[in-house]
Every structure is written in structure tokens, then in C-alpha cells.
């Protein structure tokens, strides 16, 4: 058996590989890509569009067909109870699972599997414990990854920790490594699946500030999944409440940046308004 044939048959992995139908049912849903000048310093934020995108697991519908437009560079937070379809929505956009109805477009192209413009930060950092911090950041091993990884690590405040094992890092530091790993490939879309949920309150606030700064510098389109309303209001331009697979609320957050997370009556009022819908 040749190496290539063998590798194609490693079916154990195939459960991690979503199967997409060949003819995606999006004939009437084609989008026209507008001409855009790209700015050199920023990563090119990419717009996300959902047209009737829904997901059922067998008989159970976890996500009702959704229409949603997230413009390039926007920071959206999706808030909801667990089991409300938040993570399913993120996994659909990431291309980890295929939609059972409708279509999802990133940069006007239908999503059909994982894409290199889209990066995900999971709740647990998911670092390879047998690789050093810098090797984890340069996991994709593009040419010149060492320099890029080193610079990115410095950017997230982990200068000098390049050769440590992940096991010796704190939870917050691990998430910083995971963030650096996402950033080295200059993503157009960053999906955050409750990455700060397991951190202590002080570290979480630090991570919020880091996230806001990094997003402000690069302006990739960001979608944050969270059950923490205060976190959503502190970070996002726009908050969506997802309840029973439907969007129950869609409000813009126009508080000035950089945001402080304490004693802001406007933020408190917004939080109350969102909490009513969760």
C-alpha cells in the first residue's frame, strides 16, 4: 500500500472531517463580492453572511434557519444559555460541521470545510503538550514561522517564554499562546468559543483588554461565544442573544473604546437589557 493511499484511508480521523454535499443548495443564494481596497497593516477582515443557515441533528433542530450579516471587521458577541445553539453556530461558521439547511458565506464564498482565513480559539487552549510554546504557535509551519511566532508571542505578552512547555504555563498564559497561534496566520475571521470562561476574574479582565487591543490593531471579523453578558458588552460592537435556536435580540454596543468594565452605568443598562432576553 503506498503511503498516500494509506493516508487517505486513515478513517479514524474522518469523524473529525465534516462531510459536505457536493452540490451545495445555494443556487439562489450566490453573493456578489464587492471590490475592496486592502489595507496593508491590518489583516483583511472578512464579512460573514448566513442565508437560512440551520442545523439539525437527526430530528432535533438545534439551530433554526438564520439570516445574519456580519460586516467585515465587526466584533460580534453571541450570548445565550448553554444548549441554545451558540456553539453549533460557531462550528458551522468554522466549517467544522456542515449546515443541514441554507448556506454560510465567508467573504462571499460558501463555507465548505475548514478554511485558512478562519481561526478558532476554544474554551481550553488545546496546545500540544509535547511541543514548546513557540512550536505550538507555529503549528502550521509556514516558511519563516519562528520569527513570526516569536514576534506574535511578544505581542500577546509572552516574550521569553518561547521554549517553555505548555504544562508550566497558567491558564491565562495558555490562552495567550492559543491567541498567538491564531494570529500568526493573519486570520480574516476569528471565532472565540468561550475562551475566557475558565479563567479567574482578574485574568479574564486582562485577557479582555488584550483581546480588545489586538482586535483594534488588526480588525479581523470576530465572533465571541459567551454566557457572560458583561464580557459581551465589554468587548463587542454588537450583541446577539440566541435563544432556542433563534435570534432573540440584536443590539449594537456603541460605548467608547477602550472600555472599562466597572461602574459604567450605560454598560450596566445594556447588560440588564440583554439579560432580560437570555
Amino acid at each position: 500500500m503506498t503511503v498516500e493511499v494509506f493516508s487517505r484511508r486513515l478513517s479514524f480521523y474522518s469523524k473529525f472531517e465534516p462531510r459536505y454535499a457536493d452540490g451545495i443548495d445555494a443556487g439562489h443564494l450566490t453573493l456578489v463580492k464587492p471590490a475592496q481596497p486592502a489595507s496593508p497593516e491590518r489583516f483583511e477582515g472578512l464579512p460573514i453572511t448566513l442565508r437560512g443557515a440551520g442545523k439539525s441533528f437527526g430530528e432535533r433542530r438545534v439551530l433554526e434557519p438564520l439570516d445574519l450579516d456580519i460586516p467585515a471587521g465587526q466584533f460580534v458577541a453571541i450570548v445565550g444559555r448553554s444548549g441554545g445553539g451558540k456553539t453549533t453556530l460557531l462550528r458551522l461558521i468554522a466549517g467544522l460541521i456542515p449546515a443541514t439547511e441554507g448556506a454560510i458565506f465567508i467573504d462571499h464564498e460558501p463555507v465548505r470545510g475548514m478554511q485558512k482565513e478562519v481561526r478558532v480559539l476554544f474554551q481550553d487552549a488545546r496546545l500540544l503538550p509535547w511541543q514548546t510554546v513557540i512550536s505550538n504557535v507555529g503549528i502550521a509551519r509556514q516558511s519563516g514561522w519562528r520569527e513570526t511566532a516569536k514576534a506574535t508571542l511578544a505581542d500577546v505578552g509572552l516574550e521569553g517564554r518561547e521554549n517553555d512547555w505548555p504544562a508550566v504555563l497558567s491558564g491565562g498564559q495558555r490562552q495567550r499562546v492559543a491567541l498567538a497561534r491564531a494570529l500568526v496566520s493573519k486570520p480574516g475571521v476569528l471565532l472565540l468559543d468561550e475562551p475566557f470562561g475558565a479563567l479567574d476574574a482578574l485574568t479574564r479582565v486582562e485577557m479582555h483588554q488584550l483581546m480588545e487591543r489586538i482586535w483594534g490593531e488588526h480588525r479581523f471579523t470576530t465572533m465571541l461565544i459567551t454566557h457572560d453578558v458583561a464580557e459581551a458588552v465589554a468587548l463587542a460592537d454588537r450583541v446577539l442573544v440566541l435563544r432556542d435556536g433563534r435570534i432573540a435580540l440584536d443590539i449594537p454596543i456603541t460605548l467608547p473604546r477602550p472600555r472599562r468594565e466597572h461602574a459604567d452605568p450605560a454598560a450596566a443598562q445594556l447588560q440588564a437589557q440583554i439579560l432580560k432576553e437570555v
Partner: protein
Amino acid sequence: MSAAILTRTGRALAPWAVPIGILIIWELSSRLSLIPPRLLPAPSAVAVAFWENAKTGVLFEHMAISAGRALQGLAIGGGIGFTLGVLNGVWRPAETAIDSTLQMLRNVPHLAIIPLVILWFGIDEEAKIFLVAIGVAFPIYLNTFHGIRTVDAGLIEMARVYGLGRFALFWRVILPGALPSVLVGLRFSLGIMWLTLIVAETISASSGIGYMTMNAREFLQTDVVLLGIIVYALLGKAADVLTRAIEGRALSWHPAYQNAEVRP
């Protein structure tokens, strides 16, 4: 100050007190003819036997032959076990086809096939190597298979999000993730390797430590029999030390293997 040094030396020597005590009692009992030398010769007699066999080089010849058989059997059986473990771990049709057969074979005590092996190979080298290979293959197979199946699914998903190809995924995620388990299998195998070889060499051989021991029994050289047993113990210990060293190096990332020095 000197008291502290004494305490420290005492503490370092404490674990050796019992073995040394036993040796002294044993030596004295032999000297006083409390134990007949044919049943159990004195430690000094074993030391003399070691010296005589070492001087002529016979002992090391036998040791080299035994170690060679053990390692050849380990390489063949371990290679087969590892390959099958990887294959069945990553490819379900292979598991369906092979795993239940292997589980059946695994439950046959491999020493039970000695008569068959003698019929097939006579008392040639192949017989010993074959038995060792059969014995070590299963622990390595089981642990490799288990190790691959229990690699964190989250890491595999992450690797796919980050665009790792199937081979990068295997070499950088699946295999390192399975390695601790594979090495546990290796340590199990080493025990079985020596056990099998001792039995095989005592039953049918014309060289090796087992042969040396059996030969000595014929001539009632109990001191050489004891020497053979001690040599087996030392070889077993050496193999264990070697695996620990391999583990320490290969798993230096693992929190359980990290000592004061944290950086690789």
C-alpha cells in the same frame, strides 16, 4: 556539622541495610556449614564463580548471546505489535478484520506453544527469537492501539482547524499523544522478553545464560546456577534503566517527568 553528614550518609545507606544483613547472615551460615553448599553456596563462592567465568570470557559470551536473542526478538515482535497497533488504531476496517483474532491469540500463554516451536524450528536460534517476538508483540500492540485511540479528540480537531495534513497530524499529534502508552507497553514487554528467553534457553539451547545455568545444574555447580540468576536480574534491571532513560527523554514535556529543570 559532622553529625548532619552522618545522618545524611545513614539515610543514604538505610535501604541497603537489609540486603547487606541478609548477605552477612547467608555467608556466616554457609561458613558454619548450616546450609549445605550444594543447596545454596555462600555469596563468596558465587563471587568466585563470577570471577572464574568472567576471566575466561565465557560468561560474557553467554551474556552477549542471550542479550542478542532478547533484542532481536524484541525488535521483531515489538515492530509487529507497534505496526498493528498503529494500523488498527487509525483504520477501522483493519481493527474489524484483525483485532478479535489478535485478542484470541493474546490469551494463549505463549509458553504453551513451546512444543510446537521446537517441532517447527528445532532448537535453533529461530525458536528462541520467535518465542520472544510472540511474547513481546501483544503488550506493545495493546498499548499502542489504546494510546492512539485515547489521543485527545480536541487536539485532533484543533490540528485540523489549523490545516495540518494527515501526515503532520499523525507525526505531530497522534503519535506523540500515544507515546506514553506505547512506552508503558515497552516496559511490560521487557519483563516478558527476559521471562520468555529464560524459559526458552533452559529448555533448548546450546549457548546463552539459560544454557550455562542448566549445564551447571548437570554438574551440580550450584554457584554457577546462582550466578546465572543474578545475571538475569542485572540484565533485566539494565533494560529497565534504559527504558526509563528513553521515557525521560521522549516525555520530557510531560508534567510527571519534569523535575527542577523546566526548560528543554
